[in-house]
C-alpha cells in the first residue's frame, strides 16, 4: 500500500517537530513527484527527524521541497513495499 498522507513543505521549523522514531519517508519536488523513498532505521541517530533533515541537506536532491512520513517499527519491509510501489508494481498486484 502506498503512503497516502498529504505532502508537507519542509523547513527547519517543521523538521524540528518530526518525531525521532523509526519509520519510512518520501521526499518530493514542488510538484509532488517522488524523488526518494527511504527509512530511518535502527542506526539513525535521531530517527525520522534526523533522516529527513539529512535528505533535505543532501546536495544530490536540490529540488527537494516536500516530504511525508510514517512511524513504523517494521520499517524495512514497509520500505520495500513503498519502493516497489514507486517503481511500478506488477499488474498482478493491487497497487
Amino acid at each position, binding site marked *: *500500500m502506498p503512503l497516502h498522507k498529504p505532502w508537507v513543505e519542509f523547513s527547519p521549523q517543521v523538521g524540528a517537530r518530526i518525531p525521532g522514531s523509526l519509520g519510512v519517508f518520501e521526499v518530493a519536488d514542488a510538484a509532488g513527484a517522488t524523488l526518494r523513498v527511504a*527509512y530511518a*532505521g*535502527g*542506526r539513525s541517530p535521531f530517527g525520522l527527524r534526523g533522516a529527513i533533515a539529512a535528505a533535505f541537506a543532501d546536495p544530490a536532491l536540490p529540488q527537494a521541497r516536500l516530504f511525508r512520513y510514517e512511524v*513504523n517499527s*517494521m*520499517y*524495512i*519491509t*514497509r520500505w*520495500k*513495499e513503498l519502493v*516497489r510501489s514507486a517503481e511500478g*508494481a*506488477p*499488474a*498482478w*498486484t*493491487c497497487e
Partner: protein
Amino acid sequence: MDLRVSDDQRIIVQTVRRFVQEQILPAEVELDPDAAELPAQEKVRLVAMVKAMGFYGWDIPAEYGGPGLGLVTRSLMAEEMAQHRAGLYAPCYGVFGGGGLAQLFEANDAQKEAYLYPMLRGEKRGFFALTEPSGGSDPARAIQTTAVRDGDDWVINGAKMFISSADTADFGLVFARTDPAKGRGGITCFIVDAGTPGFMVRRIVHTLRSAHYATELEFKDMRVPHGAILGGEGRGFGIANERLTRNRIPYAAGCIGVAVAAQAMSIKHAKLRETFGDVLANRQAIQWMIVDNAIDIETSRWLTLAAADKADRGEPFRHETAMAKLVSTEAAGRVVDRAIQIHGGYGVTKDLPLERWYRELRIRRIGEGPSEVQRVIMARDLLFE
C-alpha cells in the same frame, strides 16, 4: 542411537563457524539492524567463497548438483549459520544458496526444466501457498480454495494468507481442493506462474519478522493447464506434509543457533558487568539463568539431532521432529528472554541483536506448525498408532 559427530562433520561445523565469524559478522556491522540482505557486491563475493568451500546449495540433493548432505550434517550447519543478527530468517544472508521449494523434486521432467532447474540456478523464485485466511494448521480441512476441471484446464478460485514474497516471485505452488468429498486426499498442488490472469497479490502483510514480509493472495477464475499439477491429482497434502515435516528439523536447528549466540553474549556480559561491587557472574540469579539456558540448548540439540538421525536412517521421524520443533522453538524463546534480562536496558535496544531475535523467535512457535499442532501430532502417535 549413536550421535557422535564424525570427523567430516566436525570439519564442516568448524568451517561454517569460521565463515560466520570472519565474514558474516563483520559484514553485518555495516548493515541496518533489521536488514535481511547484503549489498549485491558483498553477496557475490561471499557466494564465491561458499562455492569454493563446496557448500553452495547446501540442502540440495547430490543428484541435482548439491553436496547431498544428510539432515544431521545440515542441522549442525543450520545451527552455525544462524549465529548472527539476521540468522534466524536470513541465515548467512542466503550466501549458501539452497533448494528453495523442495516439493519440486517431485516434479515431472517438463516441470523440472521449466521451474526446478531455473530455481536451483537462481534464475527463478517461487512461493509456497498453502495457508489460507481460514487457517494454516489444519490444511486438510482449512483449504477452501477450489480447483474445478474444465476440459484440459483447471479453474482455481480462493485466497491464501501469510505467503512469503509472492509479489516478487516468478511462480508458486498453490494447493487447492479438487475433490471436496475426499478430505486430505482431495487436495492437489498446482504450479502457477505469477501473472496468470486471475492471480492477484492483494497486499503485503507486515509482521514481527524483520527479514521477509508476507503477502495475501487471491485467485479469481484463474485458469491453469492440467499439466500444472505437481505430483498427481489428490497428492497435494502428501507432498506438502512430507516436506514440511522434513523442514522442521533445520528449522529447529536455526533456533538453537540463535540460542547459542544469545548464551555466549550473556556469559560474556555476566563476566564483565558489575553491580553492587561484584560481577553479574557471581550472582546466583544470573548463574541460574545461564544454567537454565544451557539446559534448554542441550535439550533442544539432542532432540533435533535425534530426529535428523532417524530421518537420515530412513526410519519414521514425524513424532521426533514434532518434539524437536516444539522444544527448540520454545526453548530458544526462553533463552533469548533470559539473555535480555541479563543485559538489562541494552538488551531491548537495537544496538544488540537480542531484540530482533526475541521478536522473530516468537514467530517460530507458530510457523511450520504451531506448538499445539506438534502436540497433536505426538498425541496421535502416542495414543492411537
